[in-house]
């Protein structure tokens, strides 16, 4: 099969796949007798039409950028990290511990420490599957799935039995004081009133640039990509595959843990049960849709942020549609861009290289 021109490979093919995913999604909405175009209109309005809606969109986008990067980073090294959900959850423990230890201090001091401490916990949680893959050969897909479940049990125990203060009914940690929490943007920008988007959003944008630099501009990134493309060749080139696998998994876990900074540090101000709420899984769709590139990850995170916020609006306006339609779309995106990503390659390739028709025009 003839290879496609670069722009078609990088832009056209993914776009086609995403369109396909949304078309199928539209058909499903149509099949239950609802109008998909009306649904899209409502979602767009809910996501961008007013200040707090837009703020929520950016808040979700923040989560999805970090989760998307956590999946992408590992994928560059040829590892499928299904564990951001659990890594973010455990990262929340690091965030709340440092937050509670320094409760009452100014956020300018606590915020960087939350990032570091959260990252360490998330990295540690992801390091174990990385270690088991590198040293013991256990498949990282299965272990990260198992670690998501183990995280749920472990954190459930820690929150309900250890962190929960006396006399509180619901399972949650003690709250952080207002001054210690990551400040929300509504304090500075009137537009975002009533929405939880906070400083972590800028951290997410910075993370996108950082990952671009790391993967495409450093020796480390080169080793990661070499490992992902051809582990045998990478090994011959003197790269220690085992070491790289462990480092990249830990790094992925650290990025996933930033979801906790956004939520525990910036929104709830306490550690609650299951605060990650699926954001880690959205990261899988975001990473595949964005093809692991920071620009792609940023844009698909925004798209999913829009879907999640707009979906909320949708559930209010069209009672026949639930927010779970978004999970369906998420699944279709993973299916068409991830699993069947090359489905359209054949037809597309034939379209580009029709032997005689194209030559005849010239």
């Amino acid at each position, binding site marked *: 099969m003839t290879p496609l021109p670069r722009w078609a490979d990088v832009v056209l093919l993914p776009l086609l796949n995403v369109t396909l995913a949304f078309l199928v999604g539209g058909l499903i909405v149509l099949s239950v007798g609802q109008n998909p175009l009306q649904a899209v209109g409502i979602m767009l309005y809910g996501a961008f039409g007013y200040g707090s809606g837009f703020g929520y969109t950016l808040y979700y986008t923040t989560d999805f950028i970090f989760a998307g990067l956590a999946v992408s980073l590992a994928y560059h090294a040829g590892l499928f990290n299904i564990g951001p959900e659990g890594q973010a959850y455990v990262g929340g423990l690091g965030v709340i511990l440092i937050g509670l230890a320094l409760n009452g201090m100014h956020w300018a001091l606590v915020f960087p420490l939350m990032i570091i401490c959260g990252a360490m916990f998330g990295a540690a949680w992801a390091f174990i599957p990385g270690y088991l893959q590198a040293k013991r050969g256990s498949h990282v897909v299965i272990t990260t799935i198992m670690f998501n479940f183990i995280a749920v049990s472990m954190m459930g125990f820690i929150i309900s039995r250890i962190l929960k203060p006396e006399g509180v009914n619901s399972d949650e940690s003690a709250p952080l004081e207002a001054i210690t929490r990551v400040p929300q943007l509504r304090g500075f920008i009137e537009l975002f009133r009533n929405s939880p988007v906070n400083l972590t959003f800028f951290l997410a944008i910075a993370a996108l640039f950082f990952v671009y630099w790391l993967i495409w501009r450093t020796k480390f990134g080169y080793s990661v990509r070499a490992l992902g493309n051809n582990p045998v060749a990478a090994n011959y080139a003197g790269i220690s595959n085992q070491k790289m696998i462990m480092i990249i998994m830990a790094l992925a876990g650290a990025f996933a843990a930033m979801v906790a900074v956004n939520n525990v540090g910036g929104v709830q101000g306490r550690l609650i049960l299951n605060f990650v709420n699926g954001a880690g899984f959205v990261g899988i769709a975001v990473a595949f849709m964005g093809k692991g590139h920071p620009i792609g990850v940023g844009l698909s995170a925004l798209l999913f942020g829009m879907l999640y916020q707009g979906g909320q609006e949708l559930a209010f306006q069209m009672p026949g549609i639930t927010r779970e339609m978004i999970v369906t779309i998420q699944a279709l995106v993973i299916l068409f861009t*991830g699993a069947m990503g090359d489905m359209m390659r054949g037809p597309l390739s034939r379209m580009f290289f029709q032997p005689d028709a194209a030559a005849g025009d010239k």
Partner: protein
Amino acid sequence: MDQILVDITLILDSTVRLAVPLILASLAGLYSERSGIIDIGLEGKLLAGAFAAAAMSAVTGSAWLGLLAGVGAALVFSGIHGLASINFKGNQTISGVALNFLAAGLTTFLGQSWFRRGGYTPQLSGDQRFNPITLPFAEELRDVPVLGQIYGELISGHNIITYVAFIAVPVTAWVLFRSRFGLRLRAVGENPKAIDTAGISVTRLRYQALIITAVLVGIGGAYLSIAQSAGFNNNMSAGRGYIALAALIFAKWRPGPALLVCLMFGFLDAIQFRIQGQSFPFIGEVPVQAIQALPYILTVVLLAGFIGRAVAPKAAGVPYTKER
């Protein structure tokens, strides 16, 4: 003494009940993975099967039609998985993950659109469910000490799917290790090229495996919604597909051990609430969460090779490309 016996039978009885969906899903995954197709999507198929079964049963009033719908839904999901991983040679893991989300999203979405009960299907009763069957002589033997208790409570009084699940284990063992189809199935999972060279279609064989997978896991889904419970509720598979996958790995892709591991995981599930708040000698109080996490932890430990080694079928996860 009698009370202890009653207690033990009760726990074992719920062990059996909780193990049934695990057994069916495990065996389902066994066919697929033995043929070289990794099946992370068991969870999704279980969920889709449960939903379709409950929805159909609610509408038609027949548990059997419900069962058929459950299997049908699992077949559709298996079909998508096959299309992605056999025809388009895509990544099987990603496809499975997508199917899990697809099931989670679609069941809630369609459930709300069709029934408007916040993700629940209507309550099922009577013929809409598979009801317990009393085996012959259960009543007569009731007064026989020990044996009567075990026969009457533990062996008799389950629904038909439970018996099907337990029969499916020896049948699978026979098919896998004694039949020609089983030989080919094992071969295609280890070395598809050999199968191809022998003039047997790899694609056809793998699709056959996926169909058996769908039938078994579809029955497992139906068990959840129209046998064990009286209706579907949101995300009712609750990770059982993943536990079944863990059991399969734990059993090293063999049917007999898979049954034992599923029973063990079912047992852990059954004693979970009994041990809550109880103190044990030497260990003290065991938190519920530790029991919940145990299947996953055990699987990780096994995968790491600390207690034996789990080696997957060699060709699992690799799409087969015929040479030109």
